[in-house]
């Protein structure tokens, strides 16, 4: 029981990590909270459904992040850059509006009924872990989640571009005086962030279900994760996403229906304790 739960928690956390780290990266660079992130994830999921049923799941896994990165370019060029001088809350509200519009368009196209995607044959089986049958697909999500965290860490810490991203996140003015072009980095980060959201969308299809409320549910989750992690702190967000996944998974089993309230109670609890969030390991603020 417990090992299965831990694995489930890791699988869910992986999705949250892919989402929340993207949000935190954009926030670090641009000080903008992208409230449309949930809608991007939703588009990823529905596109994934279309491609998976038209071609196959593996094509969706490759194509959707590529297509979604176009949204990132648009986000940077049409929203973040022109609105650079507006207040961060105003920009956040605009992304929120954009999120609603995107979600509504998706609902227009696909209708309001939940859809499901089946896992590809290769991953549809289950394996024995600690004596219990466990679906391979969930392990697959966890592996992808872990890989993306490792890739992100390597990219941020071992490449020159990653170092520039860290520099701008910590000290935008010093970085600009040293000649670092934050606009170009922001384009890259936006693209990465939406691609990750798309990837999470594709992955969620065979695991949970695809429905019209998934954008709101995800953005609320992401916001709780980001606030708990300390606004803008990437590692804080990743850690908070892990906690969130575990609390949610174990809560569902041991606390039954009360578990939907747990994340919120956790949020309130942490804010009473530390109004600035957990925020360790070098947040942007």
């Amino acid at each position, binding site marked *: 029981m417990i090992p299965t739960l831990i694995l489930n928690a890791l699988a869910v956390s992986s999705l949250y990590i892919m989402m929340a780290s993207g949000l935190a990266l954009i926030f670090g660079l641009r000080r903008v909270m992208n409230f449309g992130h949930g809608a991007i994830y939703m588009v990823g999921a529905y596109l994934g459904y279309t491609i998976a049923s038209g071609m196959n799941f593996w094509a969706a896994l490759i194509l959707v992040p590529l297509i979604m990165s176009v949204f990132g370019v648009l986000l940077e060029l049409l929203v973040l850059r022109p609105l650079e001088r507006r207040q961060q809350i105003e920009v956040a*509200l*605009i992304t929120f*509006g*954009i999120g609603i519009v995107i979600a509504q368009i998706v609902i227009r196209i696909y209708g309001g009924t939940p859809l499901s995607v089946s896992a590809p044959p290769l991953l549809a089986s289950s394996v024995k872990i600690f004596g219990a049958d466990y679906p391979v697909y969930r392990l697959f999500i966890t592996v992808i989640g872990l890989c993306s965290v490792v890739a992100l860490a390597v990219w941020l810490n071992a490449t020159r571009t990653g170092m520039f991203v860290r520099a701008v996140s910590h000290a935008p003015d010093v970085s600009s005086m040293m000649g670092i072009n934050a606009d170009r980095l922001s384009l890259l980060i936006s693209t990465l962030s939406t691609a990750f959201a798309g990837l999470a969308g594709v992955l969620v299809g065979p695991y949970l279900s695809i429905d019209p409320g998934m954008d709101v549910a995800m953005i*609320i989750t992401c916001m709780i994760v*980001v*606030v708990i992690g300390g606004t803008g702190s990437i590692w804080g967000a990743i850690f908070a996403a892990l906690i969130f996944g575990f609390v949610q998974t174990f809560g569902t089993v041991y606390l039954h229906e009360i578990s939907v*309230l747990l994340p919120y109670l956790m949020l309130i609890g942490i*804010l009473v304790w530390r109004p600035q*969030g957990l925020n360790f390991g070098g947040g942007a603020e």
Partner: protein
Amino acid sequence: MTSATLSLRPASRVRLPIFGGLALAVFLAGFLLPGYLEGGYLQSMLNNGFITGILALCVAFVMHQCGLVLFGIATYYGIAAYVCAILVNSFGFSAPSAAALALLAALVSAFLIGAIVIRVKPLAFMMICLSLAELMRHLVALPSLRGMTGGSDGLVFMPEGRILGIDAMDMLDSARVWPLIWSATWVVAGIFLVVALSHFGVRLRAIKENEERMRFSGFDTYWPRVLAFAGVGLAAGVAGVLQALASGFASPEMFSIITSTNALLAAITGGVSSVVGPVLGGVIYTWAISEFGAMGYSQLFTGISVILVILFIPRGVLHPLRLLLRKGGRA
């Protein structure tokens, strides 16, 4: 809290009789409205519009006085509606006592939440308020509370007793409940206006402008904002009770993001520094959303409105008008 006395600028004092007279005339004329509308669609639209207007006033107040975006006003609105409905249904309270306790519940919950969220940064404040509304939406829909809250179907209730001379049963009639909604809007707007003009209002705005200087001027900067937040919760509770009484219904949808977004939109469009603008905004958006809703586009309309309003009129449609009236200088 030492003083809440009015301190108007000299120029405003001269104008007070004129504006006061005009306002009184409009207020009295409002009661005659049902005679012209003869109930029906327009009247219920107006009722809903004014209720949204009260919520918009709350959002505008917090934005203008505290510089914070209250993106979760639905929390207190919904709490009041549910408390009212539950007290009537499960505990047999009469309408007036249920309404009074519902307002108290809104006030207390806003006070407790305010005490936590007022300390965090503005962006986190916005996100937390939104999350709390979602918390409530999930809470009232819990299957185990179904007996009390009606679960995801919402809660129908039939109150008894009279509030301000109107029988609670009659309130389901849109024309009969109108005087209550109309005067409540005036009371809320009036109180917000008086607070804004009082020393307490100036103090709130001063904290918004420069919290550090306030501390260096010997002021406490935490409790005034918590109190303001609690007061706003109470006002949103008024809207919630009105909605509950007018429809005999409380539903999880009252807590939805869309409720909060519409109030926010109405406040920004109307202009957060005015008390007329947000109410007007509430009426206009309620009408527009109902029109677009008939075609199934209500959320799309909300989304597009958010983008356009923030992009082009972040300070409200009345703002350019005011600048014109003011002719550059302060009246």
